[in-house]
């Protein structure tokens, strides 16, 4: 008989559970329901899908982190493992932290034989297959309901509200009512078995909380699609590629609902699945040139293919919006794993001298906001805007502030001349910097019978859009594009700066951390862990390229800065040095903290690396010096 768990040992709303399943076995919906039920109990939660590039048969994991304090980055080590895949059984058992719980199907002989592998964990066998044999005649149902049975058992063991779970079943099968009763039944089989045969609940438990507030739980791709919808996108051209596909599909779905003309049933948005990424970006540029708000969504391989067109759009000054949901590269790399490795590719996309605007959202709310903003920026600056999300942010559900929209907001269409404007003008000069911000005025095809037409080309032209190969005209144009780049610095989202390390007496802190994008999920926790060790770091989250003055000031104010990134080469660090070198940003003060294994970066990883760097420095300082005389 196991000793009873003492009340003080019970851990509420703080654990990691890993579901190990076989791809295509219907586990995704059950595991999603598990996370969502906890969310509905008011407890901060996030679920990460770790999946193979495969449709059916390969191993897949779903890792749920529950954390009352809202630390929802990936955490290493699992407290509970639901091991439903014999193929990965050994590694799944090994992933458990000491004292953790292994939930397995005890009808399977292999699970029993592997019991001896760990003695420092709790084994919770549920004869899932056997329980189902007696209850469901159909083999397919038996396979699907396996997931629901363990869901029911977990609800009992973790004290998840069964009513909440059953409501989720209602929501999920609305319109397919025949499926509700058997799902209820499977849940009850699981919870009944746990109640009758497993005795005590686990040390980890869920209890209702108020920490969710009015937040929502949603993935970044859906959020970005909605941002594009609210931001006025009317053309979406795309080519299927993981992990971006769900963004185009979400846009198409929401456009069909919210852009339908009530009278005619016609749609106010064109969604075109192109033959490849070259074509997708070509369509976006054609539509942007002709005044429609257009976007594409892709991943690194797509951005590589789009490079020539991105250079054209930069030089010909055409608005375009591109969402790059980054994945591990190079080449097809690890198509279903996350990374932040397209930073340099995106900022300098194309041959020749190019600098592209890049936005770096860190949450679903920002995916929504930046998506909408990207269209205003692209129109205002007459240039491509690349929004860089990643697989972790894009495809996993994250807790997020709800989406907001200002009813008074008007789209910024930038400098587009109407027929009336043209009538009032003596001469139209497409590429003349009239306002000193590096941005010329443009016209749309068909606007005026005899004024404002011009010929757009990727080859050199003068201020009046006339072809020329005159060196001075080319240089003037390229210099003007740099003026525009400076204008962009004032328009893109500013970096978010947290001077947490600077004390009340305003003594300057000489250490800080720079990060961006989905790393935010782990960063708050990492800073807390460091703080507990007495290491106070200021923090700056970069939200866009080009870098604004605040980025220069933050870097100048700190002697030591850690640049946290999810790539091998420290791409943001390189970019900061390249772009801000003339402002005194030097390589010596920037230290890379990197993780690029394809999983989301964890707080522990950041903490360990920064701590060991600091400790190394201290050891270095303490070391007695031996002076050598030659």
């Amino acid at each position, binding site marked *: 008989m196991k000793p009873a768990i003492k009340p003080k040992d019970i851990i509420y709303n703080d654990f990691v559970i890993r579901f190990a399943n076989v791809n295509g076995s219907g586990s995704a919906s059950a595991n999603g329901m598990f996370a969502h039920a906890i969310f509905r109990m008011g407890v901060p939660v996030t679920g990460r899908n770790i999946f193979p590039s495969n449709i059916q048969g390969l191993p897949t994991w779903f890792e749920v982190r529950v954390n009352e304090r809202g630390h929802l980055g990936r955490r290493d080590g699992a407290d509970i493992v639901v091991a439903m895949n014999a193929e990965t059984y050994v590694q799944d058992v090994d992933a458990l932290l000491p004292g953790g719980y292994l939930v397995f199907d005890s009808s399977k002989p292999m699970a029993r034989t592997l019991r001896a592998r760990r003695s420092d964990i709790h084994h919770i066998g549920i004869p899932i297959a056997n329980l189902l044999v007696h209850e469901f005649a159909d083999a397919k149902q038996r396979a699907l309901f396996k997931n629901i049975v363990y869901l029911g058992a977990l609800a009992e063991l973790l004290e998840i509200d069964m009513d909440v779970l059953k409501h989720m079943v209602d929501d999920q099968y609305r319109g397919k009512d025949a499926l509700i009763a058997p799902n209820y039944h499977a849940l009850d089989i699981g919870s009944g078995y746990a109640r009758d045969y497993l005795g005590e609940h686990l040390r980890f438990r869920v209890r209702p909380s108020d920490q969710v507030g009015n937040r929502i739980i949603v993935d970044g791709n859906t959020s970005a699609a909605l941002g594009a919808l609210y931001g006025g996108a009317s053309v979406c051209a795309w080519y299927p590629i993981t992990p971006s596909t769900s963004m185009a599909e979400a846009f198409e779905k929401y456009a069909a609902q919210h852009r339908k003309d009530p009278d005619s049933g016609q*749609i106010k948005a064109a969604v075109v699945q192109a033959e490849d990424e070259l074509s997708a970006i070509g369509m976006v540029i054609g539509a942007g040139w002709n005044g*429609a708000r257009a976007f594409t969504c892709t991943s690194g391989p797509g951005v590589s293919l789009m490079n020539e067109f991105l250079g054209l759009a930069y030089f010909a000054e055409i608005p375009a919006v591109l969402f790059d949901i980054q994945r591990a590269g190079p080449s097809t790399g690890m198509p279903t794993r996350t990374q932040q490795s397209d930073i340099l590719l995106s900022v300098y996309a194309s041959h020749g001298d190019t600098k592209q605007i890049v936005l770096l959202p860190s949450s679903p709310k920002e995916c929504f906001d930046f998506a909408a903003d990207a269209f205003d920026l692209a129109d205002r600056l007459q240039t491509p805007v690349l929004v860089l999300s990643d697989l972790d942010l894009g495809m996993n559900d994250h807790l997020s502030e709800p*989406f907001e929209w200002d009813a008074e907001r008007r789209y910024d269409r930038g400098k587009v001349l109407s027929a009336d404007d043209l009538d009032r003008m003596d001469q139209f000069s497409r590429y003349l910097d009239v306002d000193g911000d590096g941005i010329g005025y443009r016209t*749309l095809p068909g606007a005026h019978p005899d004024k404002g037409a011009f010929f757009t080309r990727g080859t050199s032209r003068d201020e009046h859009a006339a072809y020329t190969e005159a060196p001075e005209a080319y240089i003037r144009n390229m210099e003007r594009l740099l003026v525009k780049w400076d204008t962009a610095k004032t328009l893109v989202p500013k970096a978010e700066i947290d001077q947490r390390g600077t004390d009340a007496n305003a003594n300057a802190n000489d250490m800080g951390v720079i990060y961006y994008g989905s790393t935010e999920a782990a960063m708050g926790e990492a800073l807390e862990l460091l703080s507990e060790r007495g290491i106070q770091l200021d923090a700056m989250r970069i939200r866009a390229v080009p870098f604004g003055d605040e980025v220069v000031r933050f870097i100048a104010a700190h002697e030591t800065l850690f640049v946290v990134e999810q790539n091998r080469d420290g791409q943001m660090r390189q970019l900061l040095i390249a772009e801000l070198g003339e402002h005194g940003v030097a390589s010596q003060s920037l230290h890379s903290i990197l993780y690029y294994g394809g999983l989301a970066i964890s707080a522990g990883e950041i903490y360990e690396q920064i701590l060991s760097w600091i400790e190394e420095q201290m050891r270095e300082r303490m070391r007695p010096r031996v002076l050598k005389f030659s």
Partner: protein
Amino acid sequence: MTFVAKPTARHPSLKINEIGLTRRDYEGSVSTLCAGCGHDSVSAAIVSACAELGLPPHKFLKISGIGCSSKTPNYFLGHSHGFNSVHGRMPSVATGASLANKELYCLGISGDGDSASIGFGQFAHIVRRRINMLYIVDNNGTYGLTKGQFSATNDLGSTSKRGVPNLYEPIDLVSMAMQIGATFVARSFSGDKRQLVGLIKAGLMHRGFSFIDVISPCVAFNNHNGSTKSFAHMRNMQREVVSADYVAPQVEMQIDYAAGETEDVTMPDGAHLRLRKLHSDYDPHDRLHAINYLGERGREGEVVTGLLYVKSDTENTHDILNLVDTPLNSLDEEDLCPGLDALESINQSFR
């Protein structure tokens, strides 16, 4: 060729069309192509066709890729916007531009290198997507700007200027277009102005995807004996099967044709395409017949020209995507932004 600007004065004998404009209002900048280039004749034919149709000269989208052909949109319809884009990618840019504003006439100009090699994929896919546009290939069988390499439409055995034979099978864009579902497919010759102007008019007014492959000899690199894309070869080997012209609603035009059988194809706007069949054994409504016929005559060394295939009542991309009638580029916040109530219910769906 010449860099002298065109005079703006109108010659008193220039005809005024139904919207009060002359041919000069449809011209563009002075061409910089070689003197005698077939492409300039194609540009001239576009000018004539648009002037004769009385279309507003600023209501066009002129889109091209890269190459000699793709420079030409600068040489006609100077009141319209043009876009000289990326090599082989005109179809995608045209697709986007056409989606943004369905009310403009979309005219794509490409070459044989642009459409049959680097852009072969885009060519195939714009055909199957059925964009409402006229796609013209100025086909000279050679890469002119890079000094005379063979292109993919060059015939097997046809020789270069230095007498070297081409060793590879040609790609026939006309057969391809019919194969993939184009609803207006024609081939013409830049030296046959009467035929070409009629086809361009018909192609512009066809509601759907129209394709004209124009054999347009390159005077610098591919107009010698031994070339199958020379003026001389075309004059000898051209076999016109069906000529076409556009007959506006309620306008009966006198067509200057010899004997032969005519047939009017009714278009959605009430206008007609008037077809004149010059060979009784040719049926321009039977796709498979047309593809076979081209192959058979080609084996004899003949180049079949004219309106090779037409199907008038078809859907185009706007119909297929069920798009609103208002051009997408003129939709405003009212049309595009779903509003706060919708956002609240969207938020609620994620709770």
